[in-house]
């Protein structure tokens, strides 16, 4: 039992350490570890987890860790696997934060941070574009043949953006309202 817990911890530590940038890029990597190397989940279960991960709050890594952990070793397994998956991010992000704070007077280092901020706009934009394609056209790819235009989603998007820009509405409220629209229109 203890052995399983330790294996879970070490493997999710590894998954956490190599999952930089988040999102869809890390799906094959987690699959390699969880499905191919350890047979903790079948491929079908793993595909389900990705779907469920999009249907539930929380990052994909954390969701997978919780799900695999609980299936293999109960709630203790869920907690161990999850802590393993976030530990490296916890330590490294605080270390980087302190590094940038300590050297913020050095031009070259503060300029790197500015560059990271700029490029993160592009990367966030890339993630946002995937969500927009999925919401408006029902597919994350740019293939026109697979697209079907969803007018409701486009209207919700425009209205939500207007409310956010003009009235600074609470984003959680936006999520709840758009969820309600979904319930009635889909």
């Amino acid at each position, binding site marked *: 039992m203890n052995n399983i817990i330790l294996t879970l911890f070490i493997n999710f530590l590894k998954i956490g*350490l*190599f*999952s*930089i*940038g*988040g999102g869809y890029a890390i799906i094959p990597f987690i699959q390699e570890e969880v499905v191919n190397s350890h047979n903790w989940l079948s491929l079908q279960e793993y595909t389900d987890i990705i*779907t*469920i991960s*999009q249907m*539930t*709050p*929380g*990052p994909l890594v*954390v969701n997978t860790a*919780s799900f695999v952990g609980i299936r293999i070793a109960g*709630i203790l397994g*869920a907690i161990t696997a*999850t802590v393993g*998956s*976030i530990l490296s*991010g916890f330590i490294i*992000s*605080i270390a980087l*934060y302190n590094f*940038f704070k300590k050297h913020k007077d050095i*031009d*070259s280092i503060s*300029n*790197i*941070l*500015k*560059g*990271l*901020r700029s*490029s*993160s*706009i*592009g990367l*966030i*934009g*890339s*993630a*946002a574009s995937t*969500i927009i394609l999925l*919401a408006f056209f029902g597919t994350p790819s740019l293939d026109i043949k697979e697209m079907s235009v969803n007018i409701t*989603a486009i209207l919700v*998007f425009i209205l*939500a*953006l207007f409310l*956010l820009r003009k009235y*600074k509405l609470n*984003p*959680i409220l*936006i999520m709840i309202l*758009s*969820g*309600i*629209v979904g*319930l009635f229109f*889909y």
Partner: protein
Amino acid sequence: MHLNKLKVYFLLFRFSFSISAFTFGGGYVVIPMMRKYFVDDLKMISEQELLDMAAIAQSTPGAIAVNIAVLVGYRISGLKGAIVTCIGTIAPPIIILSIISFFYQSFRDNNIISSILKGMEAGVAATIVDLLIDMWQGVLKEKNLLLTLMAPFAFLANFIFNVNVLYIIIFCSVLCLAQTLIKNKLGGVESE
């Protein structure tokens, strides 16, 4: 004093927990929510700081949402704060996934849940675009051509050409470092 600290921890836990519980569809959605609570309402951190944290969280291994929450907690009340926001952020997924693991097939095939989630996609997209507009205006204020070009460059590289995030981050960091070194060198020559 002691009570005040407890109060801060409680606030940190409460907000990181509720933000995490509403973060459907990926790490970046937490940034607009963090901004709403920690920058606009509580005024515990500045918008600039939050964007720096987002940039660091994004360049670090692990889940972006967890990394940002850790940094916000760390900035507000040190290592203990970081642990509090971290627990607040991972608690909702652990609880929800533990429950779902028992009847996940019926959850996956539930029409009501999938309609609600389908509807939320457009809302998620709007909150992120709202944030992007503000971030972009911030970059334009720097009046630095390299920084201005870097955002669309990173976008194209990642979205159109599927370049790994790690390479984009390293490439941009090196460019920025080079820019400062060249600038300093030219500045040094001029002042001599």
